[in-house]
């Protein structure tokens, strides 16, 4: 611990160089573990209730594969471009980092736009959060994910501003890395929403 070489290690990527940064990143992983548990409870609720449609529409009535695929591909691609942003950061290319973060933001915004349109469409068809147990658990699960993505867009915007002001420092690098972990995690959650909500709902 008292070893200063260990405290500030030049051979590591910028985001890992200080003890504080390393602990921040580890702490964020532990937070993601808790997020997995949170989404697990929402998935469990949804999967228990999704066939309880009452007098409202069923999954097969509601879901459209084309819209779901557009959302899936937008988010999947944004996870890829976010990975490229970190790749550029590790090559110390600020412009590349900023460009890929911006592309990630735009794809994320596109995802949210389609999701909001999807929700509005459902509500116009009379499928609201109060219609049935299926729709309550559906809107809570998918809405919680959408809220996370929206938060991520705001967070990433602030980090872009900080990068423009301060450039590469161990601190900004750590922040970029942590927001990238968050963004990839949201794609992981979406993979399961795509599979367990949409595909399952259209198959059963």
């Amino acid at each position, binding site marked *: 611990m008292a070893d200063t070489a260990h405290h500030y290690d030049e*051979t*590591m*990527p910028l985001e*890992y160089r200080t003890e504080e940064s*390393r602990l921040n*990143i*580890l702490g964020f*992983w*532990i937070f*993601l*573990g*808790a997020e*997995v*548990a949170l*989404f*697990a*409870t929402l*998935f*469990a*609720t949804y*999967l*228990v209730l999704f*066939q*309880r449609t009452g007098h409202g529409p069923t999954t097969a009535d509601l879901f459209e*594969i084309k819209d779901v*695929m557009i959302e*899936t*591909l937008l988010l*999947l*691609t944004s*996870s*890829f471009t*976010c*990975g*490229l942003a970190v*790749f550029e950061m*590790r*090559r110390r290319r600020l412009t590349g980092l900023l460009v890929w973060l911006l592309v990630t933001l735009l794809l994320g915004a596109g995802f949210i736009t389609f999701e909001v349109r999807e929700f509005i469409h459902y509500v116009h068809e009379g499928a609201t959060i109060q219609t049935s147990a299926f729709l309550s658990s559906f809107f809570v699960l998918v809405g919680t994910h959408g809220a996370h993505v929206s938060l991520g867009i705001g967070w990433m915007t602030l980090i872009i501003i900080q990068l423009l002001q301060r450039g590469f420092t161990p601190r900004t690098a750590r922040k970029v890395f942590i927001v*990238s*972990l968050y963004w*990839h*995690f949201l*794609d*992981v959650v979406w*993979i*399961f929403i*795509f*599979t*367990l909500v949409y*595909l*399952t709902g*259209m*198959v*059963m």
Partner: protein
Amino acid sequence: MGANHHHETFPWKHIVGFILSLVLTFAALWIAFSSGLATKAILVGIVVLAVLQAVLQLFMFMHVTESDSGKIQTINMAYSFFIAIVVVAGSIWTMAFVL
């Protein structure tokens, strides 16, 4: 760690990860709508593909194993997935007797 972040000039790992993710996504789509399998087999198939894709993201994009605490991070995520499986599968199993 430390060895894998220098000197790379082209993001091969990310591109391979992205292509594999696309393949897994469209494979799930195909299994669901075109494979003609029984419903149960479809469900098992697409869940397996989803888990594969999640693991892919963790390793190819999130570098879960890197840094000094890579081991802790990996155990933490494995444990959280264990909790998730217990909660989800346990709820479905329990409620199957009620509904």
